[in-house]
């Protein structure tokens, strides 16, 4: 455990890892919130979540390559992805929304392959980036560096979260969405157009992912085949936090980011992905064990 020794000798790097992890986690949390929304309201696990992130990244990259600031990309990606989400809902999702969950998993998986390959054909598989040109903050005598763009991402992720909470709590549509989540049939009887609620929910989710994608392309790189990483992480976050638990999603997202950061450092990068997926299996088993202990069955 040489790596552990480094951390013990120079705890300042622990700060670096923690900050990096938390900043990454904020973006995961953003994507996960969209997933929790769709899962809770529509009972759909959206496998093409990561592809919406990737799409948002490509839109921002496109603007950047036309000489427009990538920050403009955040609202643009939000709007474009909202439309993409709407279209997807009207063409495919509305046909699977009331069906078996497994059907929707496969349908969204199909969409994810479609989007990946489409982007590969349109943008080539080149790795793309968009420079925000914000520079880097130095802390603790230059021992800890924080790229400003990550901080911006963090703040934006949290503010989008806050806006969503307000939207859900205050607006008419938000109330309709919550009512549908509680009981779709009852909501319909009460005169709520659940089809429209579903469409809005799904589109909002896509739009959030688009904004997250804009942050991803400013912080790291975007590539046509990177979606699954975001899908799986957001799924894990939702499972841990529980559906419809926004503070939980935020905490779990930040926690996952930090855990991953430490795992990459301590175990070596080769086991970083393995760690995440093993963690997923363990979390599910542990959750099931705990529920069994409470004599509840996990469905």
């Amino acid at each position, binding site marked *: 455990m040489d790596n552990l020794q480094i951390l013990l000798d120079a705890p300042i790097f622990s700060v670096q890892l923690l900050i990096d992890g938390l900043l990454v986690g904020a973006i995961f949390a953003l994507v996960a919130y969209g997933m929790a929304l769709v899962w809770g309201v529509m009972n759909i696990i959206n496998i093409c979540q990561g592809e919406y992130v990737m799409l948002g990244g490509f839109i921002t990259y496109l603007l950047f390559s036309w000489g427009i600031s990538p920050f403009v990309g955040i609202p643009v990606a939000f709007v474009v992805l909202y439309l993409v989400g709407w279209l997807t809902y009207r063409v495919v999702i509305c046909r699977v929304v009331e069906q078996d969950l497994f059907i929707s998993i496969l349908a969204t998986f199909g969409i994810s392959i479609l989007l990946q*390959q489409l982007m590969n054909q349109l943008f080539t598989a080149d790795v793309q980036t968009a420079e925000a040109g914000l520079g880097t903050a130095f802390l603790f005598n230059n021992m800890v560096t924080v790229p400003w763009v990550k901080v911006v991402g963090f703040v934006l992720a949290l503010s989008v979260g806050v806006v969503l909470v307000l939207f859900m709590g205050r607006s008419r549509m938000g109330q309709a969405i919550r009512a549908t989540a509680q009981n779709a049939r009852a909501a319909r009887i009460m005169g709520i157009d659940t089809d429209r609620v579903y469409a809005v929910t799904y589109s909002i989710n896509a739009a959030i992912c688009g904004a997250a994608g804009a942050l991803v392309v400013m912080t790291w790189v975007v590539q046509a085949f990177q979606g699954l990483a975001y899908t799986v992480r957001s799924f894990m976050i939702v499972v841990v936090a529980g559906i419809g638990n926004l503070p939980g999603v935020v905490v779990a997202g930040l926690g996952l980011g930090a855990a991953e950061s430490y795992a990459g*450092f301590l175990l070596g990068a080769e086991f970083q992905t393995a760690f995440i997926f093993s963690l997923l299996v363990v979390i599910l088993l542990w959750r099931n064990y705990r529920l069994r202990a409470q004599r509840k069955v996990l469905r």
Partner: protein
Amino acid sequence: MSVRRFSPYLAALASALLLGSAGPAGAGESITLGAAVSETGKYSTNGKHTRNGYNLAIKRINEMGGINVGGKSYQLKIIYYDDESTPARGAQLAERLIKQDGIKYMLGPYSSGLTKAIAPVTEKYGIPMVEGNGASRSLFNKGYKYLFAVLSTSEQYLAEAVNLAAENAGKLGKSASDITVALAMENDPFSQDIRAGVLDDAKRHGMKVVIDDKLPKDLSDMAATLTKVKALKPDLLIVSGHSKGAALAQRQSSDMKVDVPMLAMTHCEAAKVQDKFPGTSDYTLCATQWASTMSYSDKWFGSASDYANTFRAEYEGYTVVPYQAAESTASVLVWADAFERAGSLDTDALRDALAATEMQTFYGNIKFAPTGQNVAKPMALRQIIGGKYKVVAPSKWAEIPVVFPKPTWAER
């Protein structure tokens, strides 16, 4: 008729459909080469460079009247399949090219992993394959007789970087054996082979390897590894992870202001780091199989820089011609040369002709060892200075002396 009874006939019908759909390739006055190249999947960027390289060679050769085999002139063409960057598919497609399409002459895929999957197939059927993108050493110790590679094997990729660090250790006030090395290599056959080569070189100089991370294939963040680099302050950071690894390492090392005296990578040109990170990519060292400033030439393309100009005129979006394209073009030229010397279309005669290859192309000299790798061409190392690639090693081609140690971020 019940479904149960019907289904096997359905299956038979479906197979018959498939049979009708892909007949053997027409011969006529042309020679057909076969290749499975990544059009989709994680290698598709480099797959595109590979395909462009092949196509440019075919176009040029055909423009010049094709190739003359035993007094008869033939045009060249290529059948492509998409291996989707997965070895299982690559092996399956190689079988398909050989058995179904009747291909007798193969060109290589992109990446060592795919070549590793395809080589046993071509070997089994005795079909010669000339490849320019499978550099792993393990390809050339299996006794393959039908595999010929125009490129230098992967352990040579970054050997020059380690040597340069050793030679210039004095500038850091150290001796060569005090140099510390950090490795961040993707977990795939190609990069792991580079790692093996670097480990050997480091050992030879008595250097100490302080970080040895294997980057996952679906790499999206290198922060953990780079934090380790900041903690341990190695003198030399070596990264290899195809295009994505190069782009991420370049971006995050400047975002996190990671200061190392030397940053050496592969695939800089393929990832276009000089265009994507203008300024911050300066002083990065990049291994290359080929550079357009080298003084090689041939009858098809002229000099290396002529090739670069032809290539840029033909394909949009390239400021620097990636060596992946150049070595692919060279593979086709080797085939053309072998056809003309063999004067026959027989695969065994061609294999012998390939084995006896001794030629100069714009890409470099080509002469195959008995195990199939090209032993007549050195690797080169370039440094990005002011957004331009300048050869710094080997000394024969060097345009400028290496800038070492590179300026710290605070100084830039």
